[in-house]
């Protein structure tokens, strides 16, 4: 019963803040709503017994991405010298396509057989994750490190000061 109530609260926070992200007129407010949505997702991860992933979510997403986005907004706003407002275009068409897609997904989910209860997990998930990443998935893990390094180098190169 507690699980249902927690899930309902998290779902309301998540859907509400997601709507605010795409509808808010002020770009800065949209980013703050996104921070709330990402934190809500971390809560969903906690509800799914994935404590490590919730921590990663908070550190990388809610910490990292929000900082980068706020930084980008501040830089572009300062250079323009005026407030960045943002408007939505073709709201009707966009809403129609999104709703049709949502209806399609819900329809498929209703027809497919899904597990009704979660199996017991006796092992410590963080421990298993660490072992898997350094044994079976060590090559993808290293490739991921190279990808992140290349991405960061590229980002620094793109955003270098003009000479």
């Amino acid at each position: 019963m507690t699980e249902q109530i927690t899930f309902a609260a998290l779902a309301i926070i998540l859907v509400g803040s997601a709507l605010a992200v795409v509808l808010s007129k002020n770009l800065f407010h949209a980013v703050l709503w996104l921070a709330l949505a990402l934190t809500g997702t971390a809560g969903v991860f906690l509800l799914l017994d994935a404590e490590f992933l919730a921590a990663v979510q908070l550190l990388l997403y809610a910490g990292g991405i929000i900082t980068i986005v706020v930084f980008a907004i501040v830089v572009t706003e300062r250079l323009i010298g005026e407030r960045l407002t943002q408007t939505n275009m073709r709201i009707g068409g966009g809403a129609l396509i999104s709703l049709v897609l949502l209806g399609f997904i819900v329809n498929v989910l209703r027809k497919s057989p899904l597990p009704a209860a979660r199996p017991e997990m006796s092992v410590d998930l963080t421990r298993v994750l660490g072992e898997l990443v350094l044994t079976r998935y060590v090559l993808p893990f290293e490739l991921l490190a190279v990808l992140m390094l290349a991405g960061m180098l590229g980002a620094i190169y793109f955003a270098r000061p003009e000479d």
Partner: protein
Amino acid sequence: MGLEPYLFLSATVFCIGLFGVMTRRNTIGILLGIELMMNAVNINLVAFARYTAMAAGFVFTVFTICITVTEAALGLAIVILLFRVRRTVMADHLDLLKG
């Protein structure tokens, strides 16, 4: 509680993100929509991994989170670069490749 509510939640968030990507005119706003969509995918991955009790799904989620963060950093770097060249971040004005 079954798997279904989690999948419905993630589908809803995904569609809201899609709506943002399609209707926002500011490039940074479009990136925020993409972040929402990626986030929905992560919820899906974790939910499926938990309900099938397969730890590989969680490992996969770590990968997607890291790749998403890299993508966001690069995307915003491109936005800043575009802004420097074109003095705008509105997607309508970024028609450099239009023939």
